[in-house]
């Protein structure tokens, strides 16, 4: 907690990833970016790049195809980082729960810090969730974080060998 960490709350950069939801949440996210709610007034930007993002905003129930992608995105983000699971699907799968192709929620893949309930959550709820996330984020250190069931094997499966 040095001098620089005071400025964390001023610029949360968001990485948004949809893991197979119905796009309802995504539309709400767009609404949050749009003039009425304008999340940029808090300094938040939608970066679309894990390397430069601080908050991983996940929507959707995590389909099996998305699983590894979500893991990679999480690992590529530099610490300190927070994960926000948005919408009912993220919380254990929602209406998709126990489907053959679904991992039943973000929590099974990566550790989640903030849950935003709703189907789909209101933009105000989203902003509230992000404010909560910033509170948690401010307390985090720069130590490396790992995904759920982290093991050497899994890392090896995720990446490719160097050429």
């Amino acid at each position, binding site marked *: 907690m040095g001098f620089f960490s005071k400025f964390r709350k001023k610029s949360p950069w968001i990485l948004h990833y949809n893991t197979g939801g119905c796009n309802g949440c995504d539309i709400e996210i767009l609404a949050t970016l749009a003039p009425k709610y304008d999340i940029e007034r808090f300094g938040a930007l939608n970066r679309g*790049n*894990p390397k430069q993002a601080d908050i991983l905003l996940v929507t959707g129930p995590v389909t099996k195809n998305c699983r590894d*992608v979500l893991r990679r995105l999480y690992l*590529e983000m530099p610490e300190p980082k927070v994960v926000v699971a948005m919408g009912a699907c993220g919380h254990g799968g929602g209406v998709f729960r126990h489907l053959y192709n679904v991992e039943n929620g973000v929590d099974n893949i990566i550790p989640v810090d903030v849950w935003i309930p709703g189907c789909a959550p209101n933009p105000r709820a989203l902003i509230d969730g992000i404010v909560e996330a910033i509170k948690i984020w401010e307390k985090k250190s720069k130590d*490396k974080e790992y995904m759920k069931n982290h093991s050497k094997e899994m890392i090896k499966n995720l*990446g*490719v060998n160097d050429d």
Partner: protein
Amino acid sequence: MESLIVLSIIIPWVFALTVYLAKNDFVTNSLSYLLLPILAFFAIELFFGTLPVYIHTSKILDILMDVYDFGLLFFFLYVGIKYKNSLVISLAILQITLLIMALIMMPHSDTPNIFVDKLSAFIYVIVALVGVPIVIYATKYMDYNEKNKHTFVAILLWFLGVMNFAVSVNNIEWFFALFETTTLASYALISFRKDEEAINNGILALWMNQIGGVAILIALILMIKYNGYYHFTDILNHPKTVAIAALGFLSLSALVKGAQMPFHKWLLGAMVAPTPVSAILHSATMVKIAPYLLLRIAPVIKGTLLAKLLIITTGYVFVVAAIIALTQDNFKKILAYSTISLLGLMMLAAVVGTPIALTASLVLIVFHAFAKGFLFVEAGVLEKAFHVKYIKQMRRLVERAPITLMFIFFGFLNMTFVPFGTFIGKWMMIEEVSNFLHHGSYIILILYVGAGSAFLSILYMKVLGISVRKAHGIERIKPIKLPITFNFVSVWYYLWLLVITIFIAPFIANEIVPIANMIAGNSANIHAIGLSLQMNHSILYFWQILGALILLLLIHALPYFVKFKADIVHPYNCGERFPRYIETWNFECLSKYENYLIAFSIALFIMVVVLGGGLL
């Protein structure tokens, strides 16, 4: 002085003969190493000595030269008949006819036949400092599965002597003889491997350069007919009266020798030969005759319609060769195209003809010679030690061949980037030409220079981009031990380029500007203030030179030493596994226009012949 000149010409020949006869590794290696200090000493002694030197030669030498001429042309005829090439045959017959005509018409002249001024001495220096290391390099290069090493080195040595001779003759008929001798040398070198492709390319080089010979002969005849003299010094002494058509044909021969656009194929063909051939053709010898010839006649053609047409043609080649180079895949071909391009720039600077432009041309010649020699040497190293020929094979070169890549990087930096000579040449050109923009050709010139340099920068960055590509940390650097000869030659060029660049201001102001002043007849307003370079009112400060140099040195050398303490992650690919291979653009959108671009260059070339030559 006279003896120095004669020795600079004769010694390479003597060495060549010795190497050829001895066919012994020790003799070849030691003689080629020995030639470096000898020729460098002679050249530098000459360069700083009292010049110009005129040497009267006896009548017998004249006759010998005529005999040699015919011998040479009949040899071309023989080659044409042997390989059943009608072009070579007809051009050889044409040349013989024209030569007989010229000899019949030729009046007696008392002007000395050998004439060495600062410009010739300047080329001597380049031949000694750039050309001889390539011969040294060839002695090792030919040890890698190549045949006839000693013959090859002998031809190279002989070529250096011929080049020295060619730039010191005054008589245009002699110049023709030596011009065609360099043609012969290039034919012999290009077809050295004696396989079908090599011979085809050799023949191509032969007939294309024969066209240049024909142009010289026509120029000679015109000059004899209209002016009655045929020596360079006579032309320069009577700038007003000389037949512009003759100068037009002389410049045509320069365009051919300089591999300008419709005639660029022969220089590309040279890449089938062993790499030292390309190195020597591109850097020190052969193609440098072209800017040399234009620099010789620059004060006479300055400001004429011919000069403006040449500006348009050579500038066009500068841009178009750079564009076509973008579409190439073969590393040596890319280098060849960039040579063609930069030769265009050199000639462009030479025909503008003001002292500053001439300085720019000379600076370009120096830097191009060193950098291109360097790059081709490294291309040969890549080919032999790392088996890399195409740029797509250059991936991960940063790991496999760190030192070689560093040298290539440095060579490329020299070809366009800021504190180096090529940039200074362009800078001088643009600022000089800005003074007389009232003629359209000069505005085109500025566009040419701006566009061409942008295209060349893109070309080099593209090639470098592939060779540094790497997924993860650059950790497994294992420098492969290279032969000491290769390292000696590389370091030789590297150090020369570095030293000249640091002291570029005094180098240009004290060494290059006097040559340009001597050619142009009036003095260029270029001075060195300490290590800063002043041209007219613009100053290139030393802190700028040093800053850019340090930046670029850091960029090309530091990656091997800097290790940040940070965690390593995968590149981002939307969370997917990232692809194993990433190529680069091949600029296919440009390559489909290649034929149109070349066709247009033919049109420009014809325009130079018709309008510039004053045939209309």
